[in-house]
């Protein structure tokens, strides 16, 4: 019991200690690259709360949310069709694998050349880059559904919709969720990259602009905000996943003990 308490204390204490150490060490820093933490937080407040909140932060977040949502819907839908219709699978498989090999950020210059620097380019980049992890995970998940489940649903004469919604989707759920988590990471990366490559609005653009004009505290403020968003988005996903897949998490825990 006592030991557990110490461990908990360590878990909460260390991050606080690290931040305190950063604060103390950087307090009188004159190094241009590493300004005092106090200055960074001051700039953070001045920039993001709430001066550029509406014009840049919300813009980035909306692109991320909308692009990611569309990517998952298209990815899961296309994944179902690809997995269940052999002809489609044969025709698309080589193409999917080729696109999967391309680093997602390398597609951004292509979309810039095709659609320009606007918001549509950023959205399309996010959708197309984030599509593939979910799509591939969905195909794999459905392909590896236990054959006896298929037999049982055939014996019970489930209709096509029932089969899709009540057998395939839950059975492939954990794998789809894993793919969606990767997609979220990719969407976040491409959101930043699409803003850094030539856009003038958004958190990524402002952070890179601050770096290029040697406003180091502003750059740090941007990095902090992006870090918090990256962490927060992942945490939200974990929470939602644990809720939706509670049956799976529970059955895994049972199988382990």
């Amino acid at each position, binding site marked *: 019991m006592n030991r557990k308490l110490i461990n908990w204390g360590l878990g909460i204490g260390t991050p606080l200690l690290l931040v305190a150490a950063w604060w103390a060490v950087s307090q009188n820093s004159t190094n241009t690259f590493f300004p005092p933490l106090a200055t960074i937080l001051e700039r953070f407040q001045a920039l993001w709360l709430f001066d550029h909140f509406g014009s840049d932060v919300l813009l980035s977040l909306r692109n991320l949310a909308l692009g990611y949502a569309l990517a998952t819907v298209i990815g899961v839908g296309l994944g179902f069709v690809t997995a269940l219709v052999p002809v489609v699978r044969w025709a698309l498989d*080589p193409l999917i694998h080729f696109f999967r090999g*391309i*680093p*997602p950020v*390398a597609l951004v210059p292509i979309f810039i050349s095709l659609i320009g620097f606007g918001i549509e380019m950023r959205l399309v980049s996010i959708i197309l880059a984030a599509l593939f992890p979910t799509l591939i995970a969905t195909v794999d998940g459905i392909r590896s559904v236990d054959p006896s489940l298929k037999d049982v649903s055939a014996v019970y004469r489930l209709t096509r919709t029932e089969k899709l919604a009540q057998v395939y989707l839950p059975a492939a759920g954990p794998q789809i969720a894993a793919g969606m988590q990767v997609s979220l990471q990719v969407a976040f990366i491409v959101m930043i990259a699409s803003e*850094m490559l030539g856009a003038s609005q958004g958190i990524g653009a402002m952070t890179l602009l601050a770096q290029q004009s040697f406003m180091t505290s502003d750059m740090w403020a941007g990095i902090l905000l*992006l870090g918090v968003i*990256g962490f927060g988005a992942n945490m939200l996903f974990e929470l939602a996943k644990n809720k939706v897949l509670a049956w799976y998490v529970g059955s895994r825990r049972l199988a382990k003990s």
Partner: protein
Amino acid sequence: MNRNLRQLLVSAGGIAAALALWQFIATGPMAGGPLPPVSATLAELAGLLADGGFWTALADTLVIALAGLAAAAVAGVVLGVLIGSFEPVRYATLAVLEFLKPIPPIVILPLVVLVFGPTTEMSWFLVFFGCVLPIIVQTVAGVHDADPVTLDTARSYGLGRTEILARVTLPSAMPFIGTAMRVSAPAALVITVVAGLLGGGPGLGRSIYQAQAGGDYPTLYAYVVVLGLLGLAFQGASQLAERRLLHWHASYREVLTP
């Protein structure tokens, strides 16, 4: 008709249809625009293969990605074993690692470029930073996952600390480390390209940026095709390596199914 043959034909048809669609859009509705025809892209690709600068950029990319990955693997496994072996250290680092893990390296790219400039070291550091965290986290999980009964058995046979580490802990952590490496290898390539594209580091990423900035679209598409093939090679190689190196482990042994 033979099923395999039909599958092959449909696959080939899919590729041919995609290429034909590309060629049609590029020469028809969007002729003269930013979308180059397939033929021009392929000609440019052939031109690149005969160009010394391309091979230098390719070599730079590979060296940075592999060197960063190797450094991250060594540092990640060592740190992971240390963190995983001492319970208080594991708790102390848990929150910090969990916070840093979902943050992609592109977030700190502006800072790294500011400190290192558009150099090989900059790209290398980004790759290292991006790969080392997942490897640490997975190694810690693997060390923690070691079977307590095996550990107790080893202890009662009088094995020393290093021997237990080498014979029980590390082997049982291997699949975790293997998974981390399989995910990290393609990521290392992606990060190298990002560092070149956004940070100006040497390699194919910078070549893509220059092609785009110069409006040289056939070259841009040719580089993206090269990167796609390279990405596939990285994924294939890391999957193969994982299976080859870990075939002895229980979780990799083929289960015989009727």
